[in-house]
């Protein structure tokens, strides 16, 4: 499982790195970025799903 941010849709609402700092970080403009290759380890699956479900811009997707 992998998390992906669609940079065109992300407006830096900052929910993802609030919920799952293990998976997401922010850049200089405060936009969300995926950490590393975005691979989600089993213990982070729930957090990944929560981040996806809380992004107001629907910018996060999960690739199984």
């Amino acid at each position, binding site marked *: 499982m992998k998390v992906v941010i669609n940079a065109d849709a992300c*407006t*830096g609402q900052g929910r993802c790195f609030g919920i799952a700092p293990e998976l997401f970080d922010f850049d200089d403009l405060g936009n969300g970025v995926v950490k590393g290759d975005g691979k989600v380890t089993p213990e982070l699956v729930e957090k990944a799903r929560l981040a996806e479900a809380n992004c107001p811009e629907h910018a996060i997707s999960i690739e199984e």
Partner: protein
Amino acid sequence: MSIKPPVEDFATDWDHTDPAWVANPYPIWDELREKCPVAHTDRYGGGWFPSTYELVSAVANDTDNFTSHTVVIGNGRPGEDAPPAPIGVAPPISSDPPFHHIARRLILPAFSPGVVNTIEPFVREYCGKLLDNVSAQEIVNGGSDYAQYIPVAVIRQMLGFPEKDEDLFREIVHIVMEGIDEPDMDKRIAAFEPIRIYMEEQLQDHIDHPRDDLTSYLLNAEIAGTKLLPEHIFGTILLVLVAGIDTTWSGIASSLYHLATNPKDLERLVNEPELMPLAIEEFLRFYSPVTMARLVKEDFDFNGCPMKKDDWLLLGFPAANRDPKAFPDADKFIIDRQINRHVAFGLGIHRCAGSNLARMEMRVAIEEFIKRYPKFELTDADVVTWSQGQVRGARHLPLRILS
């Protein structure tokens, strides 16, 4: 200002300054969502109010048909002498694409999460001082003793303006908001004159003594090798003042109102501090402080409504946040709500640039308050007042300290 007749039917004659709306807008929005998801009014020269999450999102993302040239509804329309789109009076909030993108990029680094983290200790210490000042009081006003000071101190510090001018800041916000409703352009300009002089003094001081703050940053910033126009700098500073102060003040005060009236939530937050991030998002959803506006660019049909050029559109992020289609149990405050795609900070290109800062201020202000006062209640539910207009929050909030 003339006395307006009270609203009898919000579907055909809405007014966001009507006393019923100011006191408790939620039942009005619930009814509109059922009956008439895009309400109309002839007031203010004509305007529309969508009340569902879906329609609010559609408008926020539609910069082709709606302009941000004026984002606060008043009796006047933007005058001939107002700076034209796409820059507008207060970039980036008043700017449309493509200029918006440039003006926004310019200020985002100043509000990034990394910068916000460095301000947190200052906010915590400042909240502690405010609480020390009222430590002898049995009754603490959550608004006028506490919440109202916090964002003012933060913005003042970010801009690098003198500490002694903090009262003046609140006045500036007031004059700007009042001025918007003043149809007479000459009176508007006259009311604004002292602010213009004050700001020019501050800018000059920064030109003479550059330092590490947002004002000097804007003075030095360049777009494609050219320094910003003075009216751009002026407008952005004014925006930060107006957008950063009563919004966050409202967010903090409404959260304290909630805790004062819901002892179970207060107790949970005191005992389970790890709930704070979820609680902040739910405060933001349930008591969303900020409603925006747009102007219709050209005649067009929106959701079956015949919108005309220059009609207002009241962009109710708070109404969207209470839409039961978007949030199960939308009218219930659930302190640990896990899925909460709220739009309190707006959506799309104008998403609040200060959202990380605002969240941090709210969190620290509430943490410090409940650490000092783990138990408090309203002295009297009837005396609480709420601000009128597009920023909603508890204002007069007398809290009896119980422990």
